[in-house]
């Protein structure tokens, strides 16, 4: 059966484009070009997901995949080199991997006839557990955005762990890259040509600077709205956190890393990263002390004014704020580490 959306041709076009962009991103010889094409690939992908009704996922991918991931790759390349040195040989190995991968692909495709039809509302995946959320989310949690209620409540444990994944990535990159430079603030760090990132001169980007100066407050306001209004519209802690992080990264890129480092010192930044997860985990613990299971926000009704469902709604808001804090500052800290090669002094 054809996907019966009126513009299914558009979907097919996007799907073909995605494959094309993936191939181009991997075959382009200049790494900076590859990073940019990869950004475009992510953006195409998020259009496809939006077309299938996954607005929250598309939103996140637009902020994370097309936005922050691309910036990470670019700042890594900025610190190293964008040229690819090629050496002859290795064709046999590449062919061998190609054969293995093709066999794997054929094996996967062999299961296709066994799949339920695309878009069938009665397929097992759509008819087993998922209807419960659609039917009961309002009664259980008073949250009409089902993605928010499933994310932060029904499967809140996954989300706690996912926040911890971001937290781990942040402290892992910090441990890998951070180089303790000078002891006191007045000491100029030793010039180490091998690891110091090239200095960045933003004087030629007046338009970019003025535009981002104008945009950043609106981005941040929008991000706060996304976090606070996640119960009723697409969005939530992740999306809002990433946009907040991206607004700071935008400032760092359009001005200078030093500009951001003057506002966000290392110690408070890393403490804030941890405080978001801490808030989430503490809300969970509080539920245990009020007599429920871990992350059972309903049991918070003994300390909050309203009924159990409303308590769940408040609990969701609290943990979304925690997620937002950790994601925002993790993204910024990861960017600073990657862009300054762990020196926290200057860079992209």
């Amino acid at each position, binding site marked *: 059966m054809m996907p019966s959306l009126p513009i299914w041709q558009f979907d097919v076009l996007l799907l073909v484009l995605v494959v094309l962009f993936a191939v181009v991103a991997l075959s382009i010889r200049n790494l900076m070009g590859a990073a940019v094409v990869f950004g475009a690939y992510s953006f195409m992908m998020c259009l496809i997901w939006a077309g299938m009704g996954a607005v929250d996922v598309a939103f996140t991918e637009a902020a994370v995949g097309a936005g922050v991931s691309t910036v990470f790759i670019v700042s890594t390349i900025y610190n190293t080199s964008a040229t690819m040195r090629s050496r002859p040989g290795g064709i046999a190995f590449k062919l061998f991997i190609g054969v293995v991968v093709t066999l794997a692909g054929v094996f996967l495709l062999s299961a296709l006839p066994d799949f339920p039809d695309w878009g069938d509302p009665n397929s097992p995946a759509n008819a087993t557990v998922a209807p419960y959320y659609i039917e009961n989310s309002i009664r259980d949690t008073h949250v009409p955005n089902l993605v928010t209620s499933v994310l932060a409540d029904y499967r*809140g444990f996954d989300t706690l762990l996912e926040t911890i994944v971001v937290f781990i990535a942040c402290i892992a990159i910090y441990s890998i890259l951070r180089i303790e430079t000078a002891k006191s603030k007045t000491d100029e760090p030793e010039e180490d040509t091998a690891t110091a990132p090239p200095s960045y001169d933003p004087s030629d980007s007046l338009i970019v600077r003025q535009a981002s100066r104008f945009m950043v407050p609106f981005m941040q306001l929008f991000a706060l709205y996304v976090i606070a209004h996640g119960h009723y519209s697409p969005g939530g802690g992740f999306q809002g956190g990433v946009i907040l992080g991206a607004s700071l990264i935008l400032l760092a890129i359009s001005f200078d890393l030093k500009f951001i480092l003057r506002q966000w010192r290392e110690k408070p930044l890393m403490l804030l990263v941890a405080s978001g997860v*801490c808030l989430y985990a503490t809300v969970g613990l509080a539920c245990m002390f009020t007599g429920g*299971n871990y992350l059972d926000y309903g049991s918070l009704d003994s300390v909050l004014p309203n009924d159990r469902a409303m308590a769940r709604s408040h609990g969701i808001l609290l943990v979304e704020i925690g997620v937002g804090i950790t994601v925002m500052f993790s993204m910024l800290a990861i960017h600073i580490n990657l862009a300054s090669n762990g020196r926290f002094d200057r860079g992209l």
Partner: protein
Amino acid sequence: MTGQLPIIVILGPLLAAILAAFTAWLRPKLSYPLVVLGLAISFTAALKLVFIVADEGAKIYWLGNWGNQNHEFVVGIQITVDNLNTLLLTTVSGIALLTALYAKRLVETELAGRQRYFYALLSLLVTGLLGISITGDIFNLYVFLEIAALSSYALIAYGKGRAYMASFNYLIMGTMGACLYLLGVGFVFIKHGTLNIDNLSGIIPTLDPSQALFVGFVLILLGVWVKMAFFPFHGWLPNAYTHAPTASAAVLAPLATKVAVYAMLRIMFTVYSLDYITHSPGIQSVVLYLSTIAIVVGSFFSLTQTNLKMIACYFIISEIGYMVGGAWLANKPGLTGAMYHLVADAAMTSALFMAIGCIVYRLGQAQLDDLKGVFFKMPVTMGAFVVTMAALIGVPPTCGFFSKWYLIQGAAEAGVWHFVAALLLSSLVKAIILFRIIEIGYNRVAHPAIEGNPAIPRNEAPLSMLIPTVAMTLGLIALGLATNTLVNTIIVNAVPAALTQ
């Protein structure tokens, strides 16, 4: 309070890690005791659960209390504690606790000045491993896999120099494994629409001819095989664990691969079923051959290495072959052997890496040639080392003997003689390596007790490292002596019921 025990097992190290990330900046000295406390809480809870579950049967804990919604399927996430994983939980948290006690001196010398987040990451790694062992949801298992993986990349990269490349390779392979696993979960989900392991085990028919389910099964297996470094996906392990700092390797080596083996057992026998395995004889014999090759390859490469850490890494690869083979024999002694070996091998590898760590601490490195006279310099450490090697070879009454005993029994019952031969060969190789080390460490110097020879000063590892090492080594013998109790009260209930009747 007892009702909350399953979550406390995870919350101990998790909260300790979060707090340690604060104290890393505010009171750096507090990070270490916090993490030790977290691990101790987790270990106590796990130990308590062993007895509770042995008496009362499996315990289910619903996160957010989303289990009893009068719905046919569980809508939230559940964690399950049953006879299959209580032992593993105790082993993981116990070994992690002992290693944390052991590692303090090592970390102070090896990572001087760079240890800010080390203990937080260590604690998060243990959280991930415990989570994989306890979760009752196949997607949640993926998230825990990634938590354990991300923290281990960082722990390995602490080794500097070559460790970066080793860690990067591990990251690429590990992510590939996790992606294959997730794709497999997708294939299961598309057919059955739920992620809860108990629900899935109820609705996947034992003899389902569905191709999608079969592809999902193979993908999940490939995913966990990459994670456990099963042949032919073992390439990342030796470099990663050798170039990692000794303290990281002492936690990672015994635990990370074993937990992946547990995940395989859980998928094979709880999500799918015993019949599903035994009715796909093609795969079964292929996997048994792969296990044999894994054991042979691991043994062969351990013979060619000159670095003690490398040798130990190749031991791990051959031991993985033991467990995968034992599980795929799919009969009672084979499975008992595999499950018992899960615990025994974690303990043996832990003792081995602790002893190697002591040697590295004093000698600076662990090339075989540097070991001259080491038996006189570090008699206690080497005593522990020899006992551990004896356990790995399979000398009674250590635990290594009993696991091998069950495995060989299982292989003989199934008539898989190549697996029996590989098991014996691997013991032989380990014996050769032990004698080679004794030869170098004991015979290649003039014996100091003989008149006229130069005395060799004792230079034993510090007590804070020596005591955990000796304790772990004695644990190997204790575990061996307790085999009967363990097998008859716990493991017998973990083996699929169809086999025990």
